[in-house]
């Protein structure tokens, strides 16, 4: 029970990171982006590549830090993966979504995102192979916190949770203390009004993709570190991340954070009563519950 809660919080923090970017895009551009979870997968693979490159260039970087399975080369690869994934998200928007947006069909965007997801997921499979990979082959021992009930935590999990909270804090400061943060929130509230007030819409949109993509990459790397990396990571995570945004209310960043934790914890708790084969269905059940009880989510606004 407590073990499930802990694992749920950890998985939830990863979902939150993914959901923040998704909810920002869904609010600013008003479309459900089914390709967002593929950015998690992309980020993890980019990190995997740089991790290998750095450890080949300088084998000393391949040593693990403390009792973590984290290596110095992965620490160096981390920011690179964030930037590259963020830039890829911007480029995908520039070459695909922006051009479809300009034709004016809102729902075509949703559909295009299905296509983009298929392309990214299968290109990753084609380039890196379909097999499951790990950041580190070392077996990291879990630390036993309590024997009765048995509770175990891996040092990696604590580290991931800590870094995630720091990233969220930084994002919070950016949104509340910087001009960019104000501009971003203005665009999300009312794009036309923001534009007449002198905010350049296209810049804000590009920055939203950059931030959303980077956060997705961080989430993907953390998922890879605590689970595994394979081409269907995006396929497995797309629904839980959507569930997190719906629980929080589409468009609410703080809602997405909370939604991620709720979906993560609920998913792990559900395994106490459901056989694990049903776990892909749990996010869907959560979505249905939210739609029944509070259709616009915890912090969401009504239909415009």
């Amino acid at each position, binding site marked *: 029970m407590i073990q499930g809660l802990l694992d749920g919080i950890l998985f939830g923090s990863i979902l939150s990171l993914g959901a923040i970017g998704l909810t920002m895009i869904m609010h600013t551009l008003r479309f459900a982006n089914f390709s967002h979870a593929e950015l998690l997968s992309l980020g993890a693979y980019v990190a995997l590549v740089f991790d290998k490159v750095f450890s080949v260039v300088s084998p000393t970087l391949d040593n693990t830090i403390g009792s973590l399975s984290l290596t110095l080369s992965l620490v160096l690869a981390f920011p690179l993966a964030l930037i590259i994934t963020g830039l890829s998200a911007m480029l995908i928007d520039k070459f695909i979504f922006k051009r479809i947006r300009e034709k004016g069909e809102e729902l075509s965007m949703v559909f*295009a995102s299905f296509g983009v997801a298929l392309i990214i997921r299968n290109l990753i499979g084609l380039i890196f192979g379909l097999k499951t990979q790990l950041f580190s082959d070392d077996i990291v021992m879990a630390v036993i916190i309590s024997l009765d009930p048995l509770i175990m935590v891996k040092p990696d999990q604590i580290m991931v949770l800590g870094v995630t909270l720091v990233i969220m804090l930084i994002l919070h400061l950016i949104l509340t203390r910087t001009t960019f943060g104000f501009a971003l929130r203005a665009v999300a509230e009312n794009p036309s009004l923001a534009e007449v007030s002198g905010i350049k819409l296209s810049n804000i949109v590009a920055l939203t993709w950059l931030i959303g993509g980077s956060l997705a990459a961080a989430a993907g790397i953390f998922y890879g570190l605590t689970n595994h990396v394979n081409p269907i990571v995006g396929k497995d995570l797309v629904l839980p991340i959507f569930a997190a945004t719906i629980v929080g209310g589409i468009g609410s960043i703080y809602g997405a954070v909370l939604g991620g934790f709720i979906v993560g914890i609920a998913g792990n708790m559900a395994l106490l009563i459901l056989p694990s084969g049903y776990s892909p269905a749990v996010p869907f059940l959560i*979505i*249905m519950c939210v739609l029944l009880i509070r*259709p616009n989510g915890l912090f969401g606004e009504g239909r415009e």
Partner: protein
Amino acid sequence: METLIGIISYSVFFATIASILAIAVLGLNLQWGNTGLFNGGVAAFFGAGAYATILLGGTPQPDHWGGLELFYPFALIGGALFSGLLATVVGLLTLKLRHDYLAITTFGVAVAFESFVRNTNSLTGGALGLRGFERPLEGLINDPFIYNISFFIFVIFLLILIFKFLEKLISSPFGRLLRAIRQDETAAESLGKNPAKVRLTSFVVGSVIMGLAGGLYASFYAYISPQDVVPTLTFQIWAMLIVGGAGNNRGAIAGAFIIWAAWTFSGWILTSVAPVEAQLYTGTIQYILIGIIIVGMLLWKPQGLLQEKLLVSQSSKDQ
């Protein structure tokens, strides 16, 4: 003569599957092309029809429920209605909300449906799927070649029937209402129409048609497994509609044949020409192609090969 029969029987096999998929595309066209509803879970509605048809019409099996041995037409209709029931539940919860909710929830239905059929062994046979279905009239027609041709004629008959029905529907006042709601919901509402109810009707009818396609698919193979209802089926059906032209029923049928031909042909090329190591990636390459077709069509030819015809169902002197 042997090769000729081989070619004919393969063509019949190909055309049967393409026609069944065309029926599903027609259902999607009613939802998306005519009403503007985004159904991201076509596979679930197709699958609901397929599983329900086999459970209702199949013979009793020792290891799971079902096998009610219903008269075939009842099993087929029952399967289609079951898919409609699923659509009603989903529609009631989502159709009043922002359009993204429908897209996400229907996608969720497909994921949940797949995990349900994969794991509920006592009802769906789990990963092994459902067998024990006797194809209609199979006892009477012994020759498989003749049987497949008869089945193909049956499918074509249903395809034409549904095509005629939908053509009538969209040129009726109800069809005009669908387009009115798609174009400007508030305006339609100001005229005393109830958009939520109309959208629900269109969503359910479209899903019933998809369920029927699923039922035909399962009865043709006399077998259904989770492999047949994976969410990627949704992408294939969508690609068919977008290539053919959303809003145009002829386009929907043409799209189904074109994409199914491209899919089968690319699969055949990749498995017969490519080196063995690369054959593992056949599906991967095919899905990249589907993705490129979807994105490419939206970028360069969003109206599809056959455009939506603008219907004037009003007499000209009123204008």
